[in-house]
């Protein structure tokens, strides 16, 4: 049930763009994105609900393709502060209603000056 994230790691120069993908083998109710900086706890970025809804947060936005059971996180004009490991958390679509999140293995993003 664990979603698959790609790429596993990416290195950018400041100002470049990046896309992080999250795919599930199960139908999804929602996708959550978190960022974790080294030595710190994960911090919430955004939630996307089924229906292809796209949300944005500063220069970070995301899409959710319900049919393809995948989500993508877009980071544009990356800043040094974007460095960290990005996790997607997927909430499965089940009859009884939404329950726990299952997190992917993470994508390590490094932004160099």
């Amino acid at each position: 049930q664990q979603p698959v994230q790609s790429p596993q790691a990416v290195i950018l120069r400041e100002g470049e763009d990046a896309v992080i993908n999250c795919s599930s083998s199960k139908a999804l109710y929602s996708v959550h994105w978190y960022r974790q900086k080294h030595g710190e706890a994960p911090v919430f970025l955004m939630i996307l609900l089924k229906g292809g809804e796209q949300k944005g947060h500063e220069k970070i936005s995301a899409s959710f393709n319900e049919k393809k059971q995948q989500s993508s996180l877009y980071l544009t004009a990356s800043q040094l502060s974007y460095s960290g490991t990005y996790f997607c958390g997927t909430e499965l679509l089940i009859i009884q209603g939404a329950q726990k999140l299952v997190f992917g293995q993470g994508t390590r993003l490094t932004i160099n000056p």
Partner: protein
Amino acid sequence: GAGVSQSPSNKVTEKGKDVELRCDPISGHTALYWYRQSLGQGLEFLIYFQGNSAPDKSGLPSDRFSAERTGGSVSTLTIQRTQQEDSAVYLCASSSDRGADTQYFGPGTRLTVL
């Protein structure tokens, strides 16, 4: 409190000893999660509480691991007869009434088993 707190922040123990890790969720949050994160790895789900009950214990790695939550608030994760492979950061998160709302993470407890 303002956020999720965990104690202790660091715990070093000898192989075979029992340890207790504590989590204080955000006041009013009914859902509480425990995760384990080994060095450089992802978030491994351990157990989920809704109120005082644990509808999902599927992530507990062995019967040496147990958790309880009392009064719908504080939770304790207990690891008995610790092994070196138990060394990791144990993270607690809480969320409001629905199980998969935004999760707010605590700072974690770094457990080292010698």
